[in-house]
């Protein structure tokens, strides 16, 4: 991404910011989708991420990676949303709208989650608590280093290591307990 676009957006150029949205929409949306496991919630979270980025663009440090900064906003937002859900706290406008779409028309977003492999994957990572899930997603989907994950999630590197260690143990235990996929002998 050309840093010029970021600089222009920081100086109030909305067209430049729209370019940034187009460029980073998929990584941000994918993170939200993997964190929340639902297309509508993921889109709302991704839209909110870009709005928060837009509002706080002046605070962005150009020395840092813009993608890392955006992913940090998205990860924190998704973690907060899941904490609220767990505690039963909802804002009125956070209730999902009823889906009035024609069920006969195929929806590629919904097809993804109905795919059995994806369901299994969603069940697998859904066992993890939100910050651990975010750490796993960032490490194994985005290939982030522990240092980068620590910046994104505002944790120390040792906290990230400990979270990943715990998450891996939980993932292995879930596979063993649920037998999501048959374990091959001698692997």
């Amino acid at each position: 991404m050309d840093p010029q676009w970021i600089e222009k957006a920081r100086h109030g150029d909305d067209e430049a910011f729209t370019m940034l949205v187009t460029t980073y929409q998929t990584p941000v949306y994918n993170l939200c989708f993997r964190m929340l496991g639902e297309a509508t919630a993921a889109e709302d979270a991704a839209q909110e991420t870009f709005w928060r980025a837009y509002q706080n663009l002046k605070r962005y440090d150009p020395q840092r990676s813009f993608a890392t900064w955006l992913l940090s906003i998205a990860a924190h937002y998704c973690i907060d949303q899941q904490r609220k859900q767990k505690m039963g706290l909802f804002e009125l406008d956070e209730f999902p709208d009823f889906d009035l779409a024609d069920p006969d028309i195929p929806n590629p977003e919904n097809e993804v989650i109905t795919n059995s492999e994806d369901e299994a994957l969603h069940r697998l990572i859904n066992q993890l608590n939100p910050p651990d899930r975010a750490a796993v997603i960032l490490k194994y989907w985005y290939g982030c280093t522990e240092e980068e994950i620590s910046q994104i999630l505002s944790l120390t590197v040792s906290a990230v290591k400990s979270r990943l260690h715990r998450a891996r143990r939980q993932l292995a235990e879930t596979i063993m307990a649920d037998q999501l996929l048959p374990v091959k002998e001698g692997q």
Partner: protein
Amino acid sequence: MDHQTYKSWILNDELLSGEDETQLEEHLAECRECAELKANLYTALQMVRSAPQIAAPPDFTQRFTASLAARKREEEKRQARALTLALSSSALVIAFGAILIFLPEISLISLATGCVSTLLRIFEIVQATASFVSGFVKNANPSSLVTVFVVVGGWIVLASLTLALSVWKLAIKKVGINS
């Protein structure tokens, strides 16, 4: 090397040195629990790694642009409301202050003058009382002094006791909301 160390090596998912790798392989050949742990972890991480990246919906940017415009309008309205509120509050505070300072009937200046003159009067009364008491103590005979002290002291003790008794009764009877 104990079993926990091997489990920790498996779960840390880090590259091991050649020697450690050999030791782990030997342990895995003997320990079914660790072998299962490694196999299950491998399966889980393969599932995570091989999952496709989900693309954002096709009209994501257009929806963002539309919502950005709406939110900016809302933000401008909110700022305008906040500014109006701040300006009206300031105007009210200034008007109220002006009334307090300059209206002759309730002006702060006349209020302050009244306060000072009342304080001066109270001070004069206290001074006169103090000089009367000191004159009385100097000139009166000892028996009159004792009588006065007993009467005044007794009155103070009685008044205090009455007050304490009233408070205690009120507290016991819980006069008010609970009664």
